[in-house]
């Protein structure tokens, strides 16, 4: 369980990093390494070159008009502990806290989580729930991709060789909105088997399912079903699983986490 040999570069400026990625399209980006390094160790990934972006100045959490901008190398632990995130977007802090264990959160980054696109990724689910924009830099310059359009499937995104996720911009939910996020896993730190992120405000709301399907999916219509138990039933009926018969238990678990997330959101809603 040792990685195959690779070339290694550690650029210190964004321009240099983009140059390297453009010159070596077969390279992979190393940020926190909490998904990439296990894949290297198991030789599921055998890149010819690794571009370590750990020295780039991408560690900022900033307020922007109507939202928060989180640079790509901000770690899950930083998000969880950030006074600004806890004040303005506590949903994101709560999502970050659900990830792995503290020794994973101390190194794993938000940009890496977006680019890796695990079906159970909590911060990606929040990005999709909030209509966040993922900022991508390449030799062509900077562009923004809606979080819901970033992911095309399990561990698969629209990102091309030479692209680097450099930030995520989260719009704040409507004022007074309550939020809740819940997931089920057999052991603390595992990948969630079913997760739900709820936002509720007077007269409306949103619901996002994650961990069940190949990518997190918005099922906002379920919110109109009524009380939390009814929302959960409706939500489960809206999820298309590849093999419903084997995964009936997963839908049952999903119902329970939806109910929990919606109850939390209702409790936090300011009416």
């Amino acid at each position: 369980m040792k990685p195959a040999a690779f070339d290694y570069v550690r650029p210190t400026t964004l321009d240099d990093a983009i140059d390297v990625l453009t010159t070596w399209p077969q390279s992979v980006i190393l940020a926190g390494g909490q998904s990439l390094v296990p894949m290297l160790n198991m030789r599921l990934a055998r890149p010819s070159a690794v571009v370590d972006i750990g020295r780039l100045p991408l560690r900022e959490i900033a307020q922007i008009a109507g939202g928060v901008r989180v640079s790509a190398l901000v770690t899950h632990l930083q998000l969880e502990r950030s006074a600004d995130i806890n004040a303005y977007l506590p949903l994101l802090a709560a999502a970050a806290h659900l990830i792995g264990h503290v020794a994973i959160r101390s190194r794993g980054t938000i940009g890496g989580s977006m680019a890796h696109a695990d079906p159970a990724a909590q911060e990606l689910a929040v990005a999709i729930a909030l209509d966040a924009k993922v900022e991508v830099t390449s030799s062509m310059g900077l562009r923004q991709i809606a979080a819901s359009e970033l992911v095309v499937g399990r561990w698969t995104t629209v990102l091309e060789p030479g692209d680097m996720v450099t930030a995520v911009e989260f719009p704040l939910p409507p004022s007074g909105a309550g939020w809740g996020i819940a997931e089920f896993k057999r052991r603390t730190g595992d990948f969630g088997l079913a997760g739900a992120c709820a936002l509720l405000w007077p007269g409306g709301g949103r619901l996002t399912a994650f961990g069940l399907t190949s990518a997190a999916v918005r099922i906002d219509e379920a919110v109109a079903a009524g009380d939390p138990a009814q929302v959960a039933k409706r939500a489960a009926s809206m999820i298309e699983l590849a093999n419903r018969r084997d995964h009936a238990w997963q839908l049952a678990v999903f119902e329970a986490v939806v109910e929990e997330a919606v109850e939390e959101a209702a409790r936090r809603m300011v009416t």
Partner: protein
Amino acid sequence: MRGVTLRCTVNGFDQQDEVEARLSLADWLRDNLHLTGTRVGCEQGVCGSCTILVDGLPIRSCLTLAVQVDGADVRTVESLATSDDLHPMQRAFEEESALQCGFCTPGMLMTAIFLLENPGPISAESIREAISGNLCRCTGYAGIVRAILRAAREDVWL
């Protein structure tokens, strides 16, 4: 460019080495520096036995390349005891029988030290959450939780 220069401090001492980029931090500590207190279990981030502190934060040294700690401050289990004395956390582990085979112990100790060196409520529940990323196959965790609670009562942490 396969050999990379690595400079950092380990347990207070400056270190410099030429390493392959693919070398894990755990293997560098064990094989190059002969600091074999850090254990390597699963090599995929699940078991927690390789947990050490880098710049004060717990990390998995099997999921970190050695070259990634260039410039950082690294603390391993060897930093704890002096030649005369065990560290208060080690003493508490001994007193509460918090180890049997000892394989998970270095990772448990470093995780526990991070917990107590940072502000926040200390309870059996917060301890259980903190060590949830460290697997122990011998003790059933009860002694470990008691040991960390015992160590927390000593006035040496914040």
